[in-house]
Each structure stands twice: as structure tokens, then as C-alpha cells.
């Protein structure tokens, strides 16, 4: 709180220098970990993105559902189509207040190109209990190339606030 003496540019002593060096090395290590995982790791944040519009995306999703629908299941009393696309194909989920549409049925160990986009507000794609969380924006077609490594019923929760029914926005992915 008081003004320092005139010449405060003094060499650091041993403890400060040691800590500064160790901290800097740690920071460099933290930096390197990200590209290392990017090239070696199996879990990376998707980057593939295309421009779209809600109207255009809705048409694509409807065509996709019509092509691969195998049944129907209801969530919170609302019927949703269950869609079983072939492995390796492009699969689509449409986010809108307050639905994830449709229900996907995937195969364990197979790769899919999962498209995510919103019809209205920001939504949060939160796959539970796998715990993968991505942001879904209107106008952006976000492509996540995923491979389910476990089977069962998984829930998609919306974790970005999207007005008052936000907490009711629940979807489903089935992995056989």
C-alpha cells in the first residue's frame, strides 16, 4: 500500500527463481498436453461445422427420419420416432424448445457423423451418463463424429437455458 523505494528492480532470490521456473515448466506442460491429446487422444472436441438455416435443417431431419424410422416411443407423453440409421452414416438431431428430435438407435462400436443444430435458441447437448457436453446454436450445423463405446439407453439433457420449459427438454439415444 505504500510507495516502494526508488529502485525496486532487484534480482529475485533463490526461492522465487525456483518457483518461477517450476511454475513456467508446468504451464508449458499444460500447453503441450492439448495438441498431444488432439493427435493421440480418442476424445476431442468436434470442429466440423457448416452454415445452415432452421428451415433447411428441418427439411434434412425430416428426410432422415422418413428414411430410417423403425418405430415410435414417447418421452414425457409426446411420441417421438425411433430412427435406426446404418453405421457410418450421417445422423441428425434437431434441438428446439423443448425437444430433442428424433430418438436415435445406434450400434455400439460403430462410427456415426452426428449433426446438431437448433431451430430457435441456444441449446446444450448433454449426453448422460456419458457426460459429453456441446453447445448447439441456430444457424450452425455442428458435426460430431462419435463412436458409442457402451450400450444401453442414454438421455440427452438440455444444459443451456432456453426459457421456462428448459428443464423439460429431454431426448434419448439407444445403443444396441
Amino acid at each position, binding site marked *: *500500500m*505504500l*510507495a*516502494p*523505494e*526508488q529502485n525496486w528492480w*532487484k534480482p*529475485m*532470490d533463490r*526461492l*522465487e527463481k*525456483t*518457483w*518461477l521456473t517450476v*511454475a*513456467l515448466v*508446468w*504451464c508449458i506442460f*499444460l*500447453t503441450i498436453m*492439448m495438441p498431444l*491429446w*488432439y493427435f493421440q*487422444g*480418442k*476424445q*476431442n*472436441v*468436434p*470442429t466440423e461445422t457448416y452454415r445452415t438455416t432452421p428451415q433447411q435443417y428441418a427439411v434434412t431431419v425430416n428426410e432422415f427420419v422418413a428414411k430410417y424410422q423403425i418405430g415410435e416411443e414417447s418421452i414425457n407423453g409426446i411420441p417421438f420416432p425411433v430412427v435406426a440409421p446404418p453405421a457410418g452414416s450421417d445422423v441428425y438431431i434437431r434441438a428446439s424448445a423443448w425437444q430433442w428430435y428424433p430418438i436415435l438407435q445406434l450400434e455400439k462400436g460403430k462410427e456415426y457423423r452426428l449433426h446438431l443444430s437448433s431451430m430457435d435458441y*441456444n441449446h*446444450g447437448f*448433454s449426453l*448422460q*451418463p*456419458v*457426460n*459429453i*457436453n*456441446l*453447445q*448447439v*446454436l441456430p444457424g*450452425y450445423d*455442428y458435426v*460430431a*463424429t*462419435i*463412436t458409442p*463405446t457402451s450400450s444401453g439407453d442414454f438421455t440427452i*439433457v438440455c*444444459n*443451456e*437455458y432456453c*426459457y*421456462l420449459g*428448459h*428443464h*423439460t427438454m*429431454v431426448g434419448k439415444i439407444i445403443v444396441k
Partner: protein
Amino acid sequence: MATLAPTFPWVKGAKDDYRTCPVLTLKVDMHAERLIIANAVMAVLTLTIGGIAALLIALTRWQTFHLLDATWFYRLLTLHGIDMLIAWMVFFEIAGLHFGSTVLLNARHAAPKLAWLGFILMTIGGLTANVVVLFDPRNTVAYTAYMPLKASPVFYLSYILFAVGALIAVATFFINIVVAKREKRFEGSMPLVAFGFMTAAILATYTLLQGAAAIVPAFLWSMGVISSFDPGIYRNFFWGFGHPAQQVNLAAMISIWYSLAQITVGIRPVNEKFSRLAFVLYLFFINLGAAHHLLGDPGLSFAWKAVNTSYAMYLAVLGSMMHAFSIPAAMEVALRAKGYRKGLFGWLRNAPWKEPGFSALVISIVIFGWVGGVTGVVIGTEQINMLVHNTMRLPGHFHATVVSGTTTAFMGLTYYLIPLIFRKELKLKKWAVWQPYVFGGGMLLLSLGMITSGLQGVSRRNWDITFAGVVPGTVELTLAIFGIGAILAVIGGIMFVTVVFVSVLTGPRTEANKLLLVSGDGNPVLESTKLTDHMMEDKQNQPRGAFVLVFAFLVWFAVYYFTNWWLLGRTWFIR
């Protein structure tokens, strides 16, 4: 060059409008004093409103009580964000800037009218935001108001008014410094604490400008002037405001750490160069942090995310790690110089634990660093963020930083502002002694409850997670920990507000006669000037204990960091 006009009251012949603080022997300009008081009062008032909202939303998220209905939950959540993260913080920081640019420099407030204009705009903006969020259902958009959620134009206008007011107040900080330098109010370099506040002021300037880049288009869009605005760009600009705003809090908090350490144990910075360098690192790198909020967003490349999220090369983190050593080290040296030299931690055992400024300081440093800092770096790791984005781990992290860290430090300092600036005797001293422990303990539980809930997939900003029907049973336990922590913290908050208002509103105005509140009659600030280089360099006074503590911190950091990579490695393959 012509001399400046003798408008300054201390110049011979001018009207006396300052007093000399008998405790710190510094001149206090009366304009500055009134400005500090006004801003501090608004800060505590908004803290009170935000605190009431905090209790109600916490009792809603604690599933056992589930108090509010969904509409009120989201409404008060919006209010809580605005009052705490914006109003309380910024009002207090503006009080700090007025203090740092006048009292600490022995200088006058060179632009009081401008500063009052800023204060009035901030007050109007803040109150308007409160009113429109409470009474207009359109404005339940959370404090981030992500487009295309559309609030009423008045909502955005209140943000703009507040930000313009804050910008004006920050401008007076720079005016004061320039004038003080010209009038030779201080010799040589600025004190470290003022230097830290200047870092905060520079960060605040471009933070507020970036905020304008998000909120002004949103305002125009809500009025129908422009038809659309890219939601991704909005997020980028909003966090260009929202994230650096937290770094303003950080720089202000660290300045206050140095102040509290000097007030309570009489530190002299171990190495001015070291500490100042750490502030400069903030200045250069911390603005990249907006990316922390966009790591799960479409449209951005890995390289963009990785470079920005790491502050170039974790250089701002390096700044924090430097302060994390330099402040405890300075405390250790000062206490050792007083004779507490036994073992590694004898100085800690003999520290003034009953002095609220000291306990608030230690609680703030420990929870900020060990919980807030570590979780922050981990969440900000590009890939790990996928496990965390918008889950409850996120508020768990920032409640450890802005609340346990910044708010506790601000509260600690407030206890000293009451005798020194408000010139009122501190009442309910016993409450003040316990308050930092109750508040800090509560906040620690709250953060741990949130983090462990988030680890199980519980999302933030969600009225009822049981709706999803996926949450394992242990969530009830972790949410109960969160709820109990929230109640304790609210009790701590009530204690703080009560002590402040009882002290300020009762009793006569009286000059302070001592600095310490409960631990004796010493004056550590003046004692610190007697710490000679010889004493600082004495082998027996070396900060070995602090050195051990930072290495323990690093070990914990590494353990938490690698655990998260391990968790990531277990999830589905994704790219």
C-alpha cells in the same frame, strides 16, 4: 510548461477539503471519501438483494426442498447473476479504484463530478435491471441473455447505462493518476496496490468496450432496428466482456490481498519486480480467456480454442501462481521477522487468526487457489471442457473464485473501511471475527457440492434435474452438501451485512485511532516500513513454509488435472 491551475484544495490559499487519516497518516480527499462510501454502500445493497435470491434458488436446487416454481427460479437466477456478478463486484471495485487513485497516492480526486455522473448512471442501470427482471416476464433470460433469447429493450439499456457509468468511473481513475503524477503527489513508482488497481482499470476498460459490442447489437435487435445477429458472434463478444470482467475481479482481489496482508501482518512485498511482473502478465494474456466459454461451440478450430483458452501459454496462470507464492511468502517473512521462527509453519500458528482481515485473506487465497484456480485451469483445457461445459461443475468453479475468493476478500477489506473511511467504530466485533469462517466454510461446501454434482452430469441453470430421470442417487447427497453450504454462506452473508449496517448507521462519527480491529493496538502498515532489507534477507526469515505450501498446491493441481484426463479417456470416442 505552465503550472496547473491551483484548483486543488491543498494548494496554499484554497479551501481545506481533506483530512489526514491518523492511522495511516495519508491524506484523504473528501470527494474521494464520499465517492468511496457511496459506491461501497451500493455494493453492499446489491449484495443483499443478490444474497436473498441466492438463498431462494439454492433451496430450489436442493431437491429435498425444491422451493420456488420454475418461473420464479429462472427469474431470480437472472437477478442473482446481475446483482452479484455485475453490480456488487463492479460497485466495490469502483470504490477500490477511487481509493487507489487518491488515498494511496496522497492525491486529490481530480474529477469528482465526472465520478458522480458515473455513479448515478451505474445506480440507475443497476436498479432498472433489477426492476425489469422482477416485473417483466420477458426478461427471464439469465444474466448472459444469449441471443436469440429476446429480452425487452429496457433490459439491454440498463446494461448499457451501467457499463457507461462504470467506464466513466474508470476514466476518473486514470485522470486521478495523471494529475497526481503531475502535481507530484507521490514520488517514483506507484505503490504495488495502486499498480494492481491500475491493472484492473485497464482490463475493465476493454472489458466494458467488448461488452458494448455484444449488448448494443442486442439492444438494437430487440428494438427491431436490426433483424438478426449471429448467436455465435454474440457469445464471443459477450464473453469478451463476461470473462475479462472476472479478471478485473481477480486483479482487484489480488491488490486487496496485498492490502490485507499489509494491514494485518505488515508485509513488505518480497520482491516488487516479481509481483509487478505477475500483474503485467495478466494485462497481456488474460483477455484471451473469453474462449473458455466457447470451447464446446461450433465453428471454431482446435488451434483457435487451444491458443486462446491457454492464455497463449498459460501465462496468465503463471501470473496467478507467482502471486500465490509471493503473498504467503511476504506474510511468512514479516511474521518470522517478528520472531515467530519455529519450524516450517510456526509463523502460521502465531498468525492473527482472530483478525477478520487476516482470516478473510487466508480463506480467500486458499479457496481461490486450491478450488477455484485448479478447477478453472482444468475446465479451460480444450478437450476436458467437454465433460464440464454447462454442468454444475462450472458454477462450482466460479463460486470458488468470485465468491469464496473475491467476495471474501472484499468483505475482509470492508471491515477496515468502516473505521478508516466511514469513520465509524466497528460494532459486533465478535460477529466480524467469526464471519469469514462461516462464510468461507459455507462457500467451500457449496462449491464442493456443485462440483461433485456436476461430475455426475447435473446441469447448471436447471429448475428440476429429476425431470431427466437419469441422475444417480448420490446426486441427492451432493446437492444436500451444496444446500447446507449455501445456507451457511447466507448466514455468513447476513452476519457481514448486519455488522456493516449496524456499524455505519449507529454511533457517532469518529476518527479511527487504531488499525487492527481485534488483535491488539499495533499498526502493521507502519511497522512494515521498518522491515529492512537486512531483515528480509536474513536466513532465518526465508519463506520456506510458503515454498512447501506452493509445492503441495502443485501436487494437488497435477492430481486433479490428470484425474480429469483419465475421466475423459473413459467416455465415448468423439472428434
